[in-house]
């Protein structure tokens, strides 16, 4: 079996260079000119400085902004350097307790809201960085944001509709609203 060692080692090194160095470098070089923004992380720039990525959610807690999904990242929510979910099982009392606290917080922030609270607004996402909420979760918050900004609720509902993405190609995924993009558009309204 000794005669296997030279082919094993040299083939291993050679194919490692091809798949581990040449391939990622070639891919990077090829996509750089075609998909420059995407390859670099879909960064969003406002007033000349990056304020985030349109693919990575941010923590919003002020009443004047739409809030995103709860995030289970540690030590703070929406920590992009440590993605992950809560991993709470469906029967874990800690899950029900966390959801109850979120429901209470939403009700405290907007006591008169007659709408039902959508599930995505009170459950933690898988990545902890989910950039989207459901259209229902956005509309649920319209009254609160309207009050905080002294804007008519209709304006906000129209803005939400304008920022609602349908299923991709009408076939894949779920309808959704990108929270960072919605909030940026909100700041533009003043």
């Amino acid at each position, binding site marked *: 079996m000794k005669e296997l060692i*030279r*082919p094993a080692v*040299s*083939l*291993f090194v*050679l*194919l490692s260079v*091809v*798949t*581990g*160095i040449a391939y990622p470098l*070639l*891919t*990077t070089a090829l996509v750089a000119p075609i998909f420059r923004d*995407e390859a*670099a*992380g*879909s*960064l969003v720039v406002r007033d000349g400085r*990056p*304020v*985030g990525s349109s*693919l*990575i959610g*941010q923590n*919003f807690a002020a009443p004047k902004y739409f809030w995103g999904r709860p995030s289970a990242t540690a030590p*703070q929510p929406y920590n*992009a*350097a*440590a*993605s*992950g*979910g*809560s*991993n*709470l*099982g*469906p*029967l*874990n009392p800690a899950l*029900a307790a966390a*959801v109850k606290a979120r*429901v209470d917080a939403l009700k405290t922030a907007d006591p008169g809201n007659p709408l*039902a*609270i*959508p*599930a995505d607004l009170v459950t933690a*996402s*898988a*990545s902890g*960085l*989910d950039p*989207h909420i*459901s259209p229902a979760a956005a509309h649920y918050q319209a009254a609160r944001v309207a009050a905080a900004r002294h804007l008519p609720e209709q304006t906000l509902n129209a803005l939400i509709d304008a920022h609602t993405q349908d299923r*991709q190609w009408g*076939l*894949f*995924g*779920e309808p959704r609203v990108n929270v960072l993009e919605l*909030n940026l558009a909100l700041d533009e309204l003043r």
Partner: protein
Amino acid sequence: MSPHAWLLLGLYLAILLLLVKPFGSYIADVMEGRSVATRLGGGVEALIYRLCGIKREVEMAWLTYAFAILLFNVLGALAVYALQRLQFWLPGNPAAMLNVSPDSSFNTAISFSTNTNWQGYSGESTLSYLTQMLGLAVQNFFSAATGIVVVIALIRGFARHTAKTIGNAWVDLTRLTLYVLLPLSFVFAIFLVSQGAIQNFDGYQDVTTLENVRQTLPMGPVASQEAIKMLGTNGGGFFNANSAHPFENPTPLSNFVQMLAIFLIPGALCLSFGRMVGDTRQGWAVLAAMTLMFVVMALLAMHYEAQGNPLLGQLGVDMNAGNMEGKEMRFGVSDSGLFATITTLASCGAVNAMHDSFMPMGGFVPLANMMLGEVVFGGVGSGLYGMLVFAVMAVFIAGLMIGRTPEYLGKKIEAFEMKMVSIAILVTPILALAGTAVAVTAADGIAGVANPGAHGFSEILYAFTSAANNNGSAFAGLSANTPFYNVMTAIAMWFGRFGVIVPVLALAGALAAKKRIAVTAGTMPTHGPLFVTLLIGTVLLVGALNYVPALALGPVIEHLTLFAR
């Protein structure tokens, strides 16, 4: 289930079944050296063989073939271990990641060289770019190629007769990597970037959010690694959140194509098998058995996830969207339930939702999928060799029932073959159940559990089932990055991989040496509905006999507890 879920599953099946035939033929042609690609790349190939001292005409007996494969994979494990232990001093480390601990490095080295890609670590806070691309991504290629060449060797065992050899391992590995895995990955990586997956060598980016908080965005050569991660049914993510991370899997379309990528090669290999044994109906029969089991499992997962959690409904939450804990909004319950089914039937193990937070019966599906032995599509190569082992078992059982010598594809199945088949089938359940038994009785094992009650048991059972079957997904609440779990799961992964590969290659060698017997009126056809039913029955029976007690203690109890309230 929503109309969207039905449409999604239907579309998925239609596109998959359209793709498997051409890709299956292509792989068969490449492996037999008569494809356009092998002609075009002949010069490069010859150069590689000359540099490495490989004589391409010299074929190997099964034992030599097995040694070559083992040696190649041991080198892989050593390289991944060394890269992690030395990464702080090596280039390609802009985020200044420290060297990884010995036990975690060991676990990851075994994990990636066995095509498991269990992740004890968190990518974005542990590994340098160099470790990711030269360590993990390289093993994504090599472990995938390993699985495929083993099944090709087994197919040759069926296709040849009175032969001493089953192929040249070096040539097989080289051809698969150069002509199948690399070009597919390259195209797929570019598509992923078009959807928003990142691909760069920048340092981590600090941004100031709208609420004036600093957020650190991780960067890296993600798309190139993501592509082979899915195509090679590896499943080890660049980031901790894996395919739930928006930089790995940015859009519902990228998600759909990732799901296709997982089943593409395992499905196509069924057709390569049919082509190489000279009867395409044999390939379609195996594919039919796989597809039927897949559809049932997918329907179950999507159904239970769409139900939503009644405990949250009681708090006044509108559960129309289904069980959204641990899921991404862009995917929702249908695209997540389907992904979970595919990634666990195939031994991929990438996740786009947190399986730990699935409903009890929603989480039952991924667990049960792995318990079927990763043979329903399964890992690239490993799924088909596992399924062919079950096919031999099925003809053996049928032979016993009618009192004839069992035969499959013109090869008489005798004592030695059945011994190898038995070992290959029994190794993984023994590792999974024994590992679970040790962990639930050891203080270090129980210490890792995150959720109380039956779900905690499921976390441990899931971990060892995933490791032994080389899947790599997790009920990730389990704190598995401890010396106890790093060592225990590494043992399960290594023997769950090579404890099957070696008997499969022995089987290949024994079959190749046999004479081919002629088809007579007494031969049981292995391409019709009868055989498909028999094959499904065998897979389900073995899976059920091994695991029903364990499943009853985990997800089944949990489901009954939840809905008895």
